[in-house]
Structures are given as C-alpha cells and as structure tokens.
C-alpha cells in the first residue's frame, strides 16, 4: 500500500478522531463549533486528495472508485453540515434548548460519527466495516436523544433497539460470508478482504452466499431505512437536532447502502448464487410506495421529509436492483443528488422550525412571504426532491423511469405510481407551507444560508451539466456494480 494513500486514509479517520477528543476537552461551545468546522473542512480536503491517488488495497483500508464517490460526498456534506450546525446550535443555546455541556458532547459525537463513517467506507475488511457502522449507529443514537425530551428519548430508544437488531443480523451475514470464503481463501484475513473476496467470489458456495445476503440485506437494509425495517428513521429524523437529520439522510443511509452494494457485487460475481436484483427491487418498491402513502398523513415537517428520504432510498435501491449501466448510473446520480438536496432541505427546515417555533406543518404558512429566503429555498429544495428539472434529481429519475420502462414496462408502473403519489403529497404540503397567509413568527433566526445555496446550486448545476470526468467516474463505478 503506497504511503501517501495510507497517510490520506488514516487522516480521514484520524482527523475526526482527534477532533472528537479536542472538542470533548473544549469547554467553550463556540470555539468547539469552530474546531468542528475546521476538522470537517480538513477531512473534506484530504478526501479530495483521494481523487488523485491510484486505487490501493490493504488488509484494513482500501480505496477504489466506488468508495471514493461515497467518501468525497460524505465528507463534503459533513463539512457543510458542520458549518450549518454552528449557527443552528447557536440558536439552540440562546433559546436554551441545549446546554453548552450538551453541545460539547454533541460535537464530539459529530466528529466520531464522521470518523466512523469514513472508516466504514474505507474499510477493506468486512468485519472492520461492520464495527465502524456499529460505532456510527451508537453515536447517532446518542445525538438523537440529545434533547432529553420524552419524545427524543423514545425515538433514540426505538432507533437503538431496531438498529442493534439490524447490526446483529448484519454481523451474522458477515460471519456467513467468511464461512463461505474460508474454504476457498483459507483462514485469516484474506477471507474478509474485499479485494480477494471479489477475485474469488465465483468459487464460493452459492447457497451460503444466498443465506448470507438475506441477513446482510436485512441488516444493513435496516440502516438504509428500507421498508419494513424503516421504523426507526422518521422518529430519529424528527426528534434529533436538525443537523443530525441532515447527516442521517445525507450520509448514514448512504454508508449503509454502500455496504449493501458491496455485498451485491459479491453476489453478482458468483453466477450460481441468487441474483440480488429482485430482492432489492422488491424492497425498493415497497419502501417507495409505503413512504409515498405515509407522506399524506404527516403533520410534522421533519417527519415528512424523513419519509421522503425512505422513498428516495427506495428509488435508489430499485435502480441498483435493476442494474445495467443506465440504471446504475442513475442510482449513483440519484444517491448523490438526494444527499445534497435532502440535507439542503433539512437545513432550511431546521431554521424554519426555529423561526416558526414549531415543527407542525399546519402552523407553518406563507413562508415565501414571511421568510422569503428560507421559503424560496424550501420551495427550490422540494421542487428538486420531487424530481422537477432543471435540478439534478430529474436527470436520475429520467434515466431510471425511461430505462426501466424500456426494459420491463410492468416494473415501471408501480415505480411511476409511487413517484406520482409522493409528488402529490409533497406538493400539497409545500403549497400549504410556502404560500398563503403567513403564520406568526416565533422569533428572529440568524440563518446561515451559505451551505443551503452551495448544495442547491450544485444540484442545479448537476441537473444541466455533469463534468465529463465525474461522468466517466460514475460510469466506471456503474460498470463495477454490473
């Protein structure tokens, strides 16, 4: 393993770890917030370095096209979110919803979450990846419960129990993978390292792989938020601090999805094993349609968008399940766009909730008039998320729907049905919130619009123009995914 890559990857995990300790020791919350931002920024820069180093693999860490996409994306959103969370936390302290002590803890957890996610993405060892995902789960659980209100605790608890079960299932799957690989690759690390696994996958016992995939799909699928394992997601989004909602939707779901994709590749490499496509498609459609229906009865704004995350994860899972260059490309694009858009939406939603002093949709009206900036960005975000051009998600939905309809028209029907349902629900809510006679404001917010604008403009740009090397990179990954 070349030293520079080693250095970079370690930095990606080390910086957050160090920063976590640093903020934990830092009593003054503003300064800790600054450390938080700087650390995330540094991590992002190092992630960019990954773009130039050539793929490498070792027993513990490795880098290939697939996880570079995820690492860069997650570090970027981690960075913007940290910027956003600074202003958000300020407001929370002022309104006394959080104490400085909480914030210290919060920042420490934030950084360790970042570290854990980077580890999970860069881990070349399925066991290590599992450990990292587990740590990520724990940190998020703690952050979800940070408000200590009954609802927050209840949400954290639910997330905790369901998440742990998911993780347990994932571990069992991991062990089974090892057992499938062990006869071929012999005992020891080789049987747990992606590189060797991928090389030899064709010689593994398919039946073992099948059983393993069932566990992995359900286990990591729980973290992805696919129905019927989604239950933790809405509450966790709704009750935690909004930056965490953004991180959950923008990153953690992706990390879990990354794991699923890896194992999918493993199975596709083995001809005799079941094709994972149908399972993913089924779960994807189930999540899509379930979430779409759930959207209609939501009265909590954050829960609303949490369900929309489930819906989009469904679409992405569907796309990857379909497979093929177009659908995979669409899946990757959709994942990227969704992360950016959804976190942007949560940014504005957080400030809106602060400005209106409530998360009840019914009590939020006429935003475009009372808070033009927030209101219109919310409109833009929702317009993006329901897949209207010229924003990025339209492109991916265009590819998914058209390619699916060209290949299996019958599968496209439920897909389009779900998309339309979700479209209607979100548009209905948006119309209520953004337009009409404004409802009264609770107080002034110093909104930090910069991350919002950054995300939205990226999404807009992507909707019209994708830089060619990004495309090449995506296509390369799409090929990897088969």
């Amino acid at each position, binding site marked *: 393993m070349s030293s520079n890559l080693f250095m970079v990857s370690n930095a990606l995990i080390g910086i957050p770890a160090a920063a976590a300790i640093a903020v934990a020791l830092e009593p003054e919350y503003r300064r800790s917030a600054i450390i938080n931002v700087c650390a995330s920024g540094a991590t992002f820069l190092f992630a960019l370095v990954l773009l130039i180093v050539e793929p490498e693999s070792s027993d513990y860490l490795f880098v290939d096209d697939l996880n570079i996409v995820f690492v860069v994306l997650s570090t970027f959103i981690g960075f913007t979110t940290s910027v956003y969370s600074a202003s958000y936390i300020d407001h929370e302290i002022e309104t006394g919803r959080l104490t400085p002590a909480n914030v210290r803890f919060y920042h420490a957890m934030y950084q360790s979450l970042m570290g854990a996610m980077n580890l999970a993405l860069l881990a070349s060892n399925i066991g290590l990846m599992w450990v990292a995902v587990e740590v990520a789960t724990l940190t998020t659980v703690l952050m979800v419960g940070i408000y200590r209100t009954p609802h927050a605790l209840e949400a954290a608890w639910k997330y905790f129990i369901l998440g742990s079960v998911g993780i347990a299932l994932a571990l069992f799957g991991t062990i089974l993978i090892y057992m499938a690989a062990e006869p071929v690759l012999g005992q020891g690390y080789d049987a747990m390292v992606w590189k060797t696994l991928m090389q030899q996958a064709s010689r593994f016992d398919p039946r073992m792989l099948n059983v393993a995939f069932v*566990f992995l799909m359900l286990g990591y699928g729980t973290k992805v938020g696919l129905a019927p394992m989604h239950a*933790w997601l809405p509450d966790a989004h709704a009750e935690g601090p909004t930056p965490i909602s953004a991180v959950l939707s923008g990153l953690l779901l992706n990390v879990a999805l990354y794991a699923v994709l890896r194992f999918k590749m493993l199975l596709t490499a083995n001809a005799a094993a079941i094709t994972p496509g149908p399972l993913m498609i089924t779960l994807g459609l189930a999540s899509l349609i379930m979430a779409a229906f759930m959207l209609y009865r939501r009265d909590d704004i954050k829960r609303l968008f949490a369900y929309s995350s489930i819906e989009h994860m469904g679409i992405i899972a569907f796309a990857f399940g379909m497979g093929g260059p177009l659908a995979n490309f669409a899946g990757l694009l959709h994942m990227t766009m969704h992360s950016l858009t959804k976190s942007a939406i949560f940014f504005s939603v957080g400030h809106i909730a602060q400005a209106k002093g409530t998360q009840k949709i019914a009590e939020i009206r006429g935003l475009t008039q009372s808070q033009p900036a927030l209101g219109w960005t919310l409109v833009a975000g929702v317009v993006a998320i329901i897949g209207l*051009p010229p924003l990025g998600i339209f492109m991916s939905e265009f590819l998914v729907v058209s390619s699916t309809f060209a290949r299996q028209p019958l599968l496209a029907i439920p897909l389009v049905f779900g998309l339309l349902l979700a479209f209607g629900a979100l548009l209905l809510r948006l119309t209520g919130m953004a337009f009409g006679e404004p409802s009264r404001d609770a107080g002034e917010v110093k909104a930090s619009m910069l991350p919002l604008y950054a995300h939205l403009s990226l999404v807009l740009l992507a909707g019209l123009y994708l830089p060619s090397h990004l495309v090449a990179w995506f296509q390369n990954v799409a090929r990897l995914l088969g």
Partner: protein
Amino acid sequence: MPLYLALICVGALLAVSVYAIVQRRNPDISRNVYRLCIALCGVLFLAAVMPRGAHVVSTTLPLGLPWIGMHFRIDVLSAFFLAVVNLGGAAASAYAIGYGAHEKDPMRVLPFYPAFLAGMNVVVLADDAFAFLVAWEFMSLASWALVLTHHHEAENRRAGFVYLLMASFGGFALLMAFGVLGGVGGAYDFASIRESTKEAWKSGLILALAMVGMGSKAGLAPLHIWLPLAHPAAPSHVSALMSGVMTKVAVYGFIRVVFDLLGPPAFWWSVEPMTFGAASALIGVLFATIQSDLKKLLAYSTIENIGIIFIALGLALAFKANGLALPAALAFTAALFHVFNHSLFKSLLFFGAGAVLSGSGERSIERLGGLIHSMPKTAFLFLGGCVAISALPPLNGFVSEWLVFQAILLSPSLPQWTVKLLVPAIGVALALSAALGAGCYIRAYGVAFLGRPRSEAARVAQDPDRWSLGTMAALLALCLLAGLLPSLLIDTISPAAKDFVGGRMPAQAELAWLSIAPIAQSRSSYNGLLVFVFILFSAYSAKWVIHKFGSSRSRRAPAWDCGYIEKSPTTQYTASSFAQPIRRTLGVIAFSVRERLDMPAPGEMRAARLSVDIKDRIFDYLYAPLTRAVETCASGLNILGLLSIQEYLALVFGALVFLLVLVAI
C-alpha cells in the same frame, strides 16, 4: 445562424429573470423586464422567420445527459411554432407593460415570466428527449409559480397544486414514451429515434402515452380539469400565454412525436386523436357556455379549440396513413392554421378579460353589463375577438374551420370503413361545437358588454392604458389579415406539411382575387377579401340609399320593452338565464345539472329563488374516486407510523423468516 440567435435569446431571457431578482428594489423593474421580453421575443420571432441557410439547422451543446448532450434544431415545424410562441410572447409582454402596473406584488411574476417564455422556446427547439422534457417540465414549473401569483386565495393554491400534479402526470407519460422510443440502449436524441424501428404494439403504446402526455398539457378531455382552474388564476397576460401559447407548444409536441419520431402511421392511429378531440371540443364548449367567470369561460373555450386542432391532426394522420398526400396536407394545414388563429384571438380575448378585470375589478359577467358605454375601445376589440373565435366570416377563425370541414369532406377517399364512417360523426361534433361556441360568445359579450350595468363597478369602469389597447388592436388587425388573406399563411405552412405529411396544398398565392381553393376551385373555394368587400359595399350602399331617399333622423327615448319600462338593471336577462335553454336541452347529458326552484306560496312576501348546481361528470366519476382511494389507502397505511417497537421488530422478524424460508426452498 438563426438557431444560435434563438439559443442566445433564450439564454438572455433566463438572464432577464435573474436580473428581475437582482433588481427587485428598482421601482420600474416591471416595465424594464417586459420591455426586454418584447425585444427578445421579437428577435426570436425574426430567428424563426429569417431564411435559414439549410433546410434544417441543428447543433449540440455539452449539456444535459453527458453521453448525448443537448441537441437543438430548427426545421419548418419548429420555426412555425417558434413564430407562434414569440408572437404571443411579444404581445403578452407588450400588454403587460401596462397591465403589470396593476400587480400588487410584482416580484411573484417578474422572475418567472421570462423563464416561462424561455421554457416554451426551448421545448420547440429541443431535439433530444432529455432537452425536450427538461424544457417541458421547466415550462410547467415556471407557469406553476405564475399561477400562484395571487397565492392568498385558497382556490388559486388548489389550482396550482392540481396543475402541477397533472403536468407531472403528463410528464411521466412522456418520460415512458421516450423510454420506449429511446430503447434499452438509451439513445434519446431524436435523430437516432427517427432511425430506430418500432413494432406495431410499441408505436400504439407510444401514441397512447403521447396523447396522455401532450393532451394533459393541451387540455384534452378528460385530462382538462386543471386548465379551467389554472388559467384564470394567473394574471391575465400569463393566462393569455398559457391558453394561447402553451397549449400550442403541447400541440407541437404531439406533432413532433406522432408525425415525426413515430415514423409512418397506421390508419387506426387517427381514431384516438379524432375521438378525444371531438370529446374535448364538445365538453369544452358546453362548459364554456354555462360559465359566468369570464376567464374560466375563455379557458373552457381553449379546450374546445384544442379539440378542433386534434380533430384536424387525426384527419391528417388518417389521410397520411393511406398515402393521400393532398388531403393530409389540407388537414395538417388546417390544424396549424387553427393553431395560429387561436393563439391570436385567445390572447386577444384574455387581454380583453384582463382589461375588464383591471377596469371594473369584476370577473363574473353576472355583475357586469353595459361596458360598451364605459369602456368602448375594449368593447370593440373584444367584439372582434368574439367574432373571430366564433368562426364567423370574414375573420380568421372561420377560415381554419372551413379548411377542417373541407378535409372532412374528403373522407370518402379513405379506404377503411371505420374511419370513413367515423369522420362524418366527428363532423357533427365539430359543427355542433362551432355553433355552440358562437352562442357562448353571444352570451359572454351580450351579458358583459351590452345591456345596462349590473353593478357600480361596471358603470364606472375605464378603458385600459395605451399599451394594452394597442396590443389588442394589433392582434385584432392580425386576425382580420389572416381572415382576408389566408392564402399567404397557407403558403407559409405548406413546407411544413410537405415535410410531415409528404404533401402540400396547391400554392394559393397565384389564384385569382387572392382566394383560396384547397383542392381545386371547382371543388371548393373561399375568398375572405371579396366577401368582406361585398359586405362593406352592400352595407354602405344601403346606408347611402337610405340616407339619401329615406330618413336619417333619429331621437332618443326610453326603451319600449312592450310598454313596461323596468328601472332596476337586475331585471335584465342574466348570464345563467341566457344559458338556461342549453342547460335544459343538453345539460342532462353533458353535466349533471340540478335546478332547484324555491317558489313562495301566493301571499308570501319573500323572493322566489332558483339555484342551479352543475357538476363536472368527469371530475365526479374519474378524479374524485381516485383521490378518495388515495386518501383511504393513506389513512389505512398510517398505522405503520404508530406501531410499538416490538411490532416493528415483528415486521423485521417476519421478513427475515420469510426470506429464510425462500432460501431454504
């Protein structure tokens, strides 16, 4: 060259909307924006009509789908529609220079208005599925924002919601259609789509999807419900654009897909557009006849006209499928002619409605009346619009309808009996809708502009500013021109007919007296100019004779009305009473009308009252059940949000066991 010019102008339009946002504090921003729009639309119009070096010019920009890029192209068809779009756009902008001043919150219009124009232009220019759909949805999006301009009224919000939902429904239909056209390989540029071969069932599917997609935007029944909600909600110049121009863009899309991309047609393709066209024509006109909201009325009549256009297109398909080039060209020309006409007079009428709205503050004609006295100029121009849209000679509406009739009369040459017998029935529908349309506009004009004012607002109403009047006058002049010299327009259209149905009408320009003869003069011919001259001649000669030999004296006196002069203007015939005969005769079939008369017993001192409620059957039987179904499902599934942790665990557990069983087997 024209293409690049057009694209630059589109870019400029987008820049204008940015400029509007940046300059939002600037007091005369609105005037500036509209001026810029006029200029850009003007240039685009020139780009459309300027001679193109090649027959077809196209280019590709490195945007959109990376491995395809964004293709743009101008051929005769897109040039024609480009001209229509920007004529309408320029007119609307000119009108808005004056009308925009009435806008309370201009920032809800200005940023989106140029974007809307840009979107429509790009749709016409696009040459690959992705660019087309991006522009298509962008157009819907911008117009949605415009529909929500007066977002304080609840029904406008509802209109916006229904509109965008229907738009995206159509969008998805098109998406699927292009998915099939593009194939598994995803070759989405129109050039390679044209090359690709399509099986019969595929083209049938695509046709249906195109009907749904384009129809939902054009307002084809039964997908029209959003139109009467959305068009009136927007400010009048935007309504004019949506009704007069955007629906035409949808027609363009239909022509592009069905006549161009889909390859040689089969005869049965024609059935769908013709039947749905006829249905829309009838439904549209019937509902227009009973509306009392002026702008709603106009919106419904748009549905009718779209129906007529689709009838003509269906005929063109039928003829084309049987290789009857000349009749096909006739029908196709009729369709495009009507597209042009409708974009003119519908804009004119919406501008008139806007003038009435801003002049009197009233939208319901029940509270208007006598406007011919308070706003004479508007009254005159609006009358012109009414005559034109009622397909009365010598104005242009008649010409296109006459052409459609001529095309229908050629149906005996069709070999297939189904179509042969279908066409006359379609003809009845067309004739009926034309006649009802005339009745509808008699009612609208008579109640709103004639008689005595029914409200103070109507009495003190004022003519609008120069800009608005000027625009309307210009449009009326164009209507008259197109009515008197149709040969010029027909000859400009015929290249498009040549390319898309493989035939062209005989060149009309060289016919004597500037008359038009679609096939041969012995078969049918019409000369608007001559008829017009005749009418003027006989009218003036009559006047001259009478004033010379008869009397020219006249004096004013109270109205006679069989000896009883009633004071209050409320005793006039109202709009709803005017519509009563039609409601009675056709209401039962078309819309479930319920009239409730509450007649006080003799000696009782209260007023009798008649209440009429009219329901749109399509809504009741098609959309209401759908919404109800979604609601029930949503409430049913809502349980999933309220389970206890162990129940959620049970779900996971169940899934696990199920899958394990699957694996085990």
